[in-house]
């Protein structure tokens, strides 16, 4: 989360918390909430996309050979690590 002072104040925000332009959620980088980071072992990944289906965000990005993680939005819930049948995802402490 960026510093509070970088954000607009009450005199410039639209009244009633209306979001006047669509797509603003993209700017909210929820990856900052993450305590554990998913790490992929590309040798184990078969690109089966089970993690892609289960990821609630979705923060799994499809790739040609394997999936990748979008750490801007991955909250570190670990569902991908639990659901991966090949144990290709491991959760490591964020530092």
């Amino acid at each position, binding site marked *: *989360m960026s510093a*509070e002072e970088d*954000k*607009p*104040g*009450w005199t410039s*925000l*639209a*009244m*009633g*918390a*209306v*979001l*006047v*332009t*669509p797509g*603003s959620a993209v700017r909210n980088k929820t990856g900052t909430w993450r305590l554990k980071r998913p790490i992929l072992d590309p040798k184990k990944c078969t690109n089966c996309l089970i993690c892609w289906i289960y990821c609630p965000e979705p923060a799994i990005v499809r790739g040609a050979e394997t999936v990748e993680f979008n750490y801007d939005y991955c909250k570190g819930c670990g569902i991908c690590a639990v659901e991966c049948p090949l144990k290709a995802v491991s959760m490591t402490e964020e530092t």
Partner: protein
Amino acid sequence: MTKAVSQQIVGMNGDEAVAFAAKQANVDVVAAYPITPQTIIVERFSDYVANGEVDTQFVCVESEHSALSACVGSSLAGSRVFTATSSQGLALMHEALYLASGLRTPIVMAVVNRALSAPINIHNDHSDMMGSRDCGWIQLYAENAQEAYDLTLQAFRIGEDHSVSLPVTVNLDGFTISHAMEGVAVIDDDQVCKFVGKREPVYKLDPAKPMTFGPLTLPDYYSEFKRQQVDAMNSAPAVIRAVANEFKKISGRQYSDISAFNVEDADAAIICLGSIAGTARTVAARLRQKGKRVGVIKIWQYRPFPTIEIARLLSNLKCVGVIDRAVSFGAPYGAMCSDIASTKELTGIKTKIFNVICGLGGRDVKPTEIEGIFEKALAYANGEPIDEPVSFVGVRA
């Protein structure tokens, strides 16, 4: 009333007068649920709908919670919206009251004031609105059916003004006003139509221009939106004054934040809301004939509270008795007396104040009791120490 304004006098009770005002304001949506003593308002309005006298979308809902929720949605869609409730109905709306003000949706709601359960009671006091006092709505109080009609018409203009954009309650005392027949001077439809104009929403739900209403705001944004609401409330008095002045041109009746009666040269006064002001003025006038310098301050605009005007009037008075028709359990004073005490503190005025709680659950407040309050205020004004800062009047021991 000025001579230039010709108006038809129609026999209506307070509820009918409010329904008639909503009809003349040409509201787009009414979502409401019946509850005594408000029921007549929505009954009359549904008659207008059934008779084809209005093209309003009347939404029959299963509760007050749904009624106000539908009003919030309709207001977001850009409609002019009206509803009405009382007592338990207002209590059931409680969470949606904050949605309406927080989302900055203009809605006009008549609150026909009635006591809250338990024990169950259908008669008048102000515990319903006082229980939702801090909900962020503008709160106006009528003294009679005429004022209920007049304030309802003005409420649309006030709430829909872009610098305000807030919901407004028009409070009228249950039965005393809602069910009592009066001659109400009504303004021509054409003139009302010109006065209320058409609502131009600041933002509205529109598929062609998508926006998000009611998003989650976390600790990094929530405070800013509450601060905006304070600013909107602060903008309201100037709008209310401007609307009142414009309303006078079509009605001949002048509104303001407060109405003062014989206060300027008085030693003591009563401050009150709603229908009790009539009794208080009658008693005050009688006491004047006996040489007693007493007056009455009636508050029309309870939120935003008219701090400056109250302070100005208080500064010339030695003592005021503040009447609350609701109990604020465990608090030092009743709700309105707390506001008066805050006004004193903020402005450094030394006027003595005391609080009288009376008229709960429709208990009649007799002229003799009002006289007793004036006598007490005069005694305090003449130097007697305040022995009872808060007292109940008309309650059996």
